[in-house]
């Protein structure tokens, strides 16, 4: 089984595309889960620091410069595939956070407790919504940040509101 047969990226398939543990411990950074050669490049233009590049022509896959990226989240709503997340493993008290694009309504409220889920939609842990951005510039792709135990920042990619039906 791989992402072509079930839609789920395994960690082996992401190898070499993820920030190092050292970098993760330094603060927020973008993680781009875009592994196929599809004709798309808005992420490159979106980054104000020039931290995202794609190899070869428009069909190349993107990579993030660990040093240039400061995890600002601007690229998240620019990705048509909603495949960019900002993870932060450097929170206080063993906590971390994940910022993700969330194109559903209603939006969660700040401090709301949600079920954080992985790439398969399985609940991993509880998370707390710490920030909800929905400005005009985001063009209807709001960015939600959830706080959760730091060991889960590389697994959590979505969340379910508890008021929602399962």
């Amino acid at each position, binding site marked *: 089984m791989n992402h072509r047969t079930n839609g789920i990226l395994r960690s082996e398939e992401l190898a070499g595309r993820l920030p190092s543990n050292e970098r993760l411990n330094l603060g927020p950074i973008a993680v781009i889960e875009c*592994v*196929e*050669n599809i*004709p798309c490049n*808005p992420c490159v233009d979106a980054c104000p620091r020039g931290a995202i590049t794609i190899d070869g022509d428009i069909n190349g896959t993107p990579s993030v410069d660990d040093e240039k990226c400061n995890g600002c989240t601007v690229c998240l709503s620019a*990705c048509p595939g909603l495949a960019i997340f900002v993870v932060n493993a450097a929170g206080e008290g063993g906590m971390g956070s994940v910022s993700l694009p969330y194109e*559903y*309504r209603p939006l969660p409220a700040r401090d709301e407790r949600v079920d954080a889920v992985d790439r398969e939609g399985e609940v991993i842990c509880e998370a707390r919504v710490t920030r909800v951005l929905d400005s005009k510039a985001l063009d209807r*792709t709001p960015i939600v940040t959830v706080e959760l135990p730091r060991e889960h920042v590389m697994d959590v990619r979505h969340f379910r509101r508890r008021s929602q039906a399962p």
Partner: protein
Amino acid sequence: MRITEHPILQFDRGRELAFEFDGRPMKGYEGETIAAALHANDVRVLRESPELHRPRGFFCAIGRCSSCLMTVNGVPNVMTCITPLRSGMHIETQRGKGTPAIGDAHSPRIRPDEQSRESDELPVVPLVIVGGGPAGLSAAAAAARFGIETVIVDENDVAGGQLIKQTHMFFGSREHHARVRGIDIGSKLIGDIEALPVRLMLGTTVLGLYQDRTLSLLAGDRHIAVRAESVVLATGASENMLAFENGDLPGVYGAGAVQTLMNVHGVTPGERVLMIGAGNIGLIVAYQLLQAGVEVAAIIDAAPEIGGYHVHAAKIRRAGVPILTSHTILKVSGDDRVTSAEIAMVDANWQPVPGSGRTLDIDTVCLAVGLTPNCELAFQSGCRQAFVPYLGGPVAVHGRDLETTVDGVFIAGDASGIEEASTAMLEGRLAGLAVAERLAADSDKTEIARLTAETREGLDALRAGPFGEKPRLGKERMFEIHRDIREAGE
């Protein structure tokens, strides 16, 4: 059910309209089609099949499949999926073929246009574009920019083709409207032609394309004949059907129809959907269903791998929707609407694996099993046709400049081979530029050549990756066939 809150769309419903369905009073809104209003009122059966009296419902929502024919104000065979709802309409379930008696007060009458009847000479239009979707609008902008008077004919009441229901952001590069939502690209393309010599004839059907590029148009009950110096056929594609037991039950809908219902009219197709097809359309529409608050039970695909982009699959997968590759649908059950579906695994020879069947409680099956190019007008006008499997069906033979084997008749977008809206826009532009090359002033030729080269480069780039392989190979084969016909002097 009507959608009230949506992450991308706002449904500004028009005036409330009262109408009658089989004698029952119902309410709909101005701007809705008859079929959408009925769906919102939980009506699923629109007609009965003439021979076996099986219930028939909505299927394509683009006026192609005839599944939605109903009797409206006494007139039978009205395509309710594209006919706007009006106040006071009497809508009836159609039984039988609904042939109106000749001379019946309700039988439709078509009157010839005064101008075309009184004059021997037909009005001549430099460019007629059939279809106001991404390819047609782009062709219009490209040609009209060089002063070529253009008429776009489209049978829908709004321009934009299928872009009007694409709520997701497009891929590509900035020059190709990447990260802009399809709905907004449609508005932009319509804006692009506003200041140009382009006339949009909406609600108008092209009945035929004859010798010397004579077109027969039907606008409401008015018949118009025109001659065109050039024609661009940008007629798009139709949804494919899949054969399975009870597949004609109301509740089995094409993916495009589901998009129209929920993204144009704000009406959900059902409560729990089974999606058939894990190509980009199936994946995208499944995501849009989730955004509309509809549950998606699963996406299945008979192929061993997901056909669409992983990023589309990932969005629905993390929302908890299973994607079952190597799975097919065996049957649906229900009396006059779908209430369940039976699915099973398939082996390497695409045969169902005995004992692997299971039943899903769903009320809607959405088919995203491919599209077939709409080439009827091209074939009627005498264009040579060829079947290139990678292009999705028989298409009119065309060259790199998109001209068919009939002089002055061009074809672009999905009608010339199934691809993406982003490539359709570039193909439309190329067809418009090819028309400009024929009709524009000599002083414009350098600029036309420059834009043509630039557009071809963009198109090649979009087709360069692994997902562009099929259309790339299909188009190469098509250009070879075109060259062979040209060289044989046929």
